[in-house]
């Protein structure tokens, strides 16, 4: 430890502040994909359109992702209390739900692809795959982070006092979740009402 410890100017952890700053910019990222999707929602080029969505299926995987936020926050809570065993359990549960969501997305994409919704089919297809796909990529990164967190805590590299690490991964995870809260409504449910 250094002899000249002075607390940060705002009394906040740098990494947590950094994560929030980064998340602020992510809204602009997803927003752009979403505007493309909304612009092209009817531009199907004689290919499949929004009627292709399987709402019950997507609802289930959305629900799984939503609940993964609960396990994530429980993992952080356990870490905060120093209960590393529980923390690992919840982290694994979260990663598992993330993988279930991803598996659902892969399945969904495969089905759509078989039904003719090719990336190259139409602007609608391109923008749908990009919007959902980049969200999926975020989930995948989140799963990797969680697995890393799990293995590092297993080897003792992450210790009870270091809950900031769990916290910032949690922030990222919840962010990916709330993006899906928006996407599920805007991409799937609202258009479905118009059919």
């Amino acid at each position: 430890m250094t002899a000249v410890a002075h607390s940060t100017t705002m009394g906040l952890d740098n990494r947590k502040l950094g994560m929030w700053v980064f998340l602020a910019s992510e809204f602009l990222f997803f927003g752009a994909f979403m505007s493309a999707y909304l612009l092209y929602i009817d531009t199907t080029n004689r290919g499949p359109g929004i009627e292709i969505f399987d709402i019950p299926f997507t609802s289930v995987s959305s629900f799984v992702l939503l609940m993964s936020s609960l396990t994530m926050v429980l993992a952080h809570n356990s870490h905060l209390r120093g209960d590393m065993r529980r923390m690992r359990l919840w982290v694994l549960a979260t990663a598992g739900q993330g993988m279930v969501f991803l598996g659902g997305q892969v399945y969904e994409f495969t089905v759509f692809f078989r039904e003719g919704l090719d990336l190259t089919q139409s602007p609608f297809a391109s923008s749908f795959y990009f919007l959902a796909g980049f969200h999926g990529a975020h989930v995948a990164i989140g799963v990797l982070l969680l697995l890393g967190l799990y293995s590092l805590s297993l080897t003792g590299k992450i210790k009870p006092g270091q809950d900031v690490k769990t916290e910032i991964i949690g922030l990222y995870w919840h962010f990916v979740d709330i993006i899906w809260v928006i996407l599920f409504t805007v991409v799937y449910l609202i258009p479905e009402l118009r059919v």
Partner: protein
Amino acid sequence: MSTSGTQAADAVEHEAHGGHHPTPTEYVRIALILAVLTALEVSTYYFDFGRAGIPLLIILMVIKFIMVAGSFMHLRYDTKLFGRFMYTGLGFAIVLYTATLLIFVVDANQ
């Protein structure tokens, strides 16, 4: 000197909201409410809400958003600065992209 200040920072932080962390039970309660809201959302697919459908979905979406951000992301308990970042980003995105899409709509009607 990136690292030397963090201990103190964490100390400050834990002090600032240490006592206000919700308990696991509270988290579960919040998750249950979220589940109910999601069920309500999905029900629009099965039942016809008429004109109320879209506004209802948007309201539910906003509520879910605020609940996850406020409780799970601790915005309710943390420093206001974090919330400001998030809502600035969100606000920017909404304003800019709405304006962009509006330009398309306005032009299409001409």
